[in-house]
């Protein structure tokens, strides 16, 4: 049979048309698609069995319990543990991507001296020299930990000053601590029993205190209700997340919060809405109206609304003696639904020592925020897991990252009931990293080791026979056979919660109405760091959506 050119063309055309009625082109297309989506350079997830371990977050003092999914020895997912009695499984947005932080490009990998690579030995000899010349200071951003005991003991032994920095929540409790002559860490807010909260700019629904503690209360008792069980009155210049979720939002001029508190106090006394006791505030309603932007009638109406449903609790954003004095007037100090001392608080801390002399050197713990500026002229030894930019230090010393450090977590600020947890180190640390406590322990091995302090604290809790350990199943302390078993339960992710306080009296005395403490910058996690070192996925919140402001946006 002779094949003509025409037959050849017809056959080719027929084959071409016919091939589309077969699975061949679609299979080829499918395979090409799959092939082009599996290039060698495309990252592949790790292999290995997935296990779940309990841990605790150490990114902030709240100490939220974590459920960490591990594969191939690495954390591949983080979620909150519902067993935690305060957070009930809640985490802040950053917590969900915190396991990626250890590979953040800003991770400090080596000791750096004035921007150049150096060794731990050089850092150690420089610090020992500074100690010998003195005076030096040790700055701790989160006092009360076992590591803090090391820092404090070193300071006491080497005649250094120990400076414990406080965050905004702790600062809000400082006036009561001063008036009652107790430590700030022994006080907390009894939010569970309060019926009206007057927040002077405190970001109660945006990461304030322990994530989940107030938001759960708000969701159950206030969200969306026109007459909620829990009334939240937000006094703040800007419509924040908390203001949006509040029962009432009172917009006032920036910096006039304390004057408004004083004028509310004078209305409460003048109209006999509270039993008159203590000093009378010097503020008049007319003055307050001119500075706050509210009308005198609005201030009087607000004062009546505040006491309409008791107990009432005022919360400031940072230290504010005038707002604390308003709480005193409202009877919110030392009573249920107010400010309470943590009864049986088993972890007392000695007060910080201060040094007014010019410092030769300052050792800054990794818990200190980057906005902290070392005293002028002092040689700064800054421990940090990530380079936050901000104020530079002569020495940058790499510290362990997320889940890389054994630590303990005493009661978080604002909590009225004592808690204790242990954050295990699920990941091995690099040989290049050291905590400030480890650094000092190498210089002076006679200091109390972190393991020993954790053990001693567990023994103390065991001896007190108070409270419950919240793990997969809650267990009272009485059910533990030994302190070692209690310690193991805490190392496995359990959280000890003390029994509710027995309302021991908190005597605060105030001779005269406190003055204005000045304007304060608004608290915002995105602006408090000199250069936020956030998990890369946090960009979803401020870059790929307009949900949160970047520092640049908020400044503009």
């Amino acid at each position, binding site marked *: 049979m002779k094949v003509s050119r025409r037959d050849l063309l017809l056959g080719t055309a027929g084959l071409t048309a016919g091939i589309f009625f077969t699975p061949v082109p679609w299979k080829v297309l499918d395979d090409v698609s799959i092939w082009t989506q599996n290039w060698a350079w495309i*990252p592949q997830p790790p292999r290995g069995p997935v296990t779940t371990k309990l841990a605790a977050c150490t990114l902030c003092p709240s100490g939220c319990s974590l459920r960490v999914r591990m594969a191939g020895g690495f954390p591949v997912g983080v979620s909150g543990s519902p067993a935690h009695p305060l957070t009930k*499984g809640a985490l802040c*947005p950053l917590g969900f991507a915190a396991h990626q932080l250890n590979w953040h490009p800003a991770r400090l990998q080596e000791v750096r001296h004035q921007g150049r690579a150096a060794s731990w030995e050089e850092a150690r000899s420089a610090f020992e020299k500074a100690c010998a010349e003195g005076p030096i200071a040790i700055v701790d951003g989160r006092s009360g930990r076992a590591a803090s005991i090391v820092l404090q003991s070193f300071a006491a032994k080497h005649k250094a000053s120990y400076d414990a920095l406080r965050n905004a929540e702790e600062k809000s409790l400082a006036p009561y601590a001063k008036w009652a002559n107790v430590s700030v860490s022994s006080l907390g807010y009894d939010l569970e029993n309060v019926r009206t909260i007057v927040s002077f700019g405190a970001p109660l629904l945006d990461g304030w205190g322990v994530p*989940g503690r107030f938001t759960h209360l708000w969701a159950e008792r206030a969200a969306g209700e026109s007459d909620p069980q829990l009334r939240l009155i937000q006094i703040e210049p800007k419509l924040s997340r908390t203001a*949006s979720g509040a029962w009432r*939002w009172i917009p006032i001029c920036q910096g006039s919060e304390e004057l408004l508190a004083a004028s509310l106090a004078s209305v409460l006394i003048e109209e006999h809405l509270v039993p008159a006791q203590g000093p009378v505030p010097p503020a008049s309603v007319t003055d307050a109206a001119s500075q706050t932007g509210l009308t005198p009638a609005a201030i009087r109406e607000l004062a009546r609304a505040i006491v309409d449903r008791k107990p009432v609790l005022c919360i400031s954003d940072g230290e504010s003696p005038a707002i604390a004095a308003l709480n005193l007037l409202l009877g919110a100090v030392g009573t249920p639904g107010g400010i309470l001392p943590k009864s049986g608080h088993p972890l007392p801390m000695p007060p910080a020592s201060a040094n007014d002399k010019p410092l030769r050197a300052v050792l800054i713990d990794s818990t200190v925020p980057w906005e902290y500026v070392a005293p002028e002229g002092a040689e700064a030894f800054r421990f940090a897991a990530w380079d936050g930019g901000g104020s530079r230090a002569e020495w940058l010393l790499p510290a362990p990252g997320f889940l890389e450090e054994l630590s303990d977590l005493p009661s978080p600020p604002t909590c009225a009931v004592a808690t204790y947890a242990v954050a295990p180190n699920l990941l091995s640390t690099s040989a290049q990293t050291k905590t400030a406590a480890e650094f000092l322990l190498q210089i002076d091995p006679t200091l109390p080791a972190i393991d020993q302090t954790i053990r001693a604290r567990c023994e103390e809790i065991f001896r007190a026979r108070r409270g419950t350990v919240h793990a997969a199943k809650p267990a009272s302390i009485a059910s533990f056979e030994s302190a070692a078993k209690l310690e193991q339960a805490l190392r496995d992710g359990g959280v000890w919660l003390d029994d509710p306080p027995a309302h021991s009296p908190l005597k605060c005395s105030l001779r005269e109405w406190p003055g204005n403490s000045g304007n304060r910058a608004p608290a915002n996690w995105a602006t408090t760091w000199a250069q936020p070192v956030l998990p890369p996925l946090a960009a*979803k*919140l401020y870059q790929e959506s307009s949900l949160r402001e970047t520092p640049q946006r908020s400044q503009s």
Partner: protein
Amino acid sequence: MSARYGMVIDLDRCTGCGACMVACAAENNVPPLPARATDRTGLTPMLVHKVNNGLEGAGRREAFIPIACMHCANETPCVSVCPQQAVEVDKATGIVMQIPQRCLGCRYCMTACPYHARYFNWWDPSWPPGMEKTLNPGVATRMRGVVEKCNLCHARLHTAMEKAAAEGKKEIEMTDYIPACVEACPTNAIQFGDLANPDDPASQAAHSPETFRLLARLGTEPKIYYKSRQPWVRALAERSASGHATEGQHV
């Protein structure tokens, strides 16, 4: 197994914290994008929008509306336009699935989606060195040039199904299948469940008179329900439901 998975989101409880967005991205191996990525070019299978009541002064209020794929049950727009059959409605679960291996990146589905819940993957997935060790082993990474969206954490459904199979059960326990955004919500604003099961709390909540669906007038039967007791939030939803705008309100 014949379920119809869906959600009921209580907007009054949403504080706009964004935990759902970050948890979703971490669970589904969504990569961190270059600094030039924006809300138009980003990858946010769950995106929380901020809306307000249009008033000024003390009367002004804001609310937050989390929007993910609505998993439309009727005439699913993205399914009908896809030339590659890269979008399928799983009959067993009601989940609208995106199959990246089939996707050509033509973005018809993005145009067709009335909720703007689909995102084009503009960049190759890449993580800072070492960070790929933290990827979720249950979810494959996707190449650039494909469309992505919420699949109700399908990997978690697979895990729950494997567990049920290992235990000799035909049906999964709903406690074993909780999408990442639901698990992450600190106020329990998101209820998830089988809307076809009348005993499921989410199903009961979805069928209560308080709930509404966005753009309900289109008749696509979305499986994401919302609820709010705020009249202005409901008015916004009614605008989307009936087509009648209420003056002074802005999305």
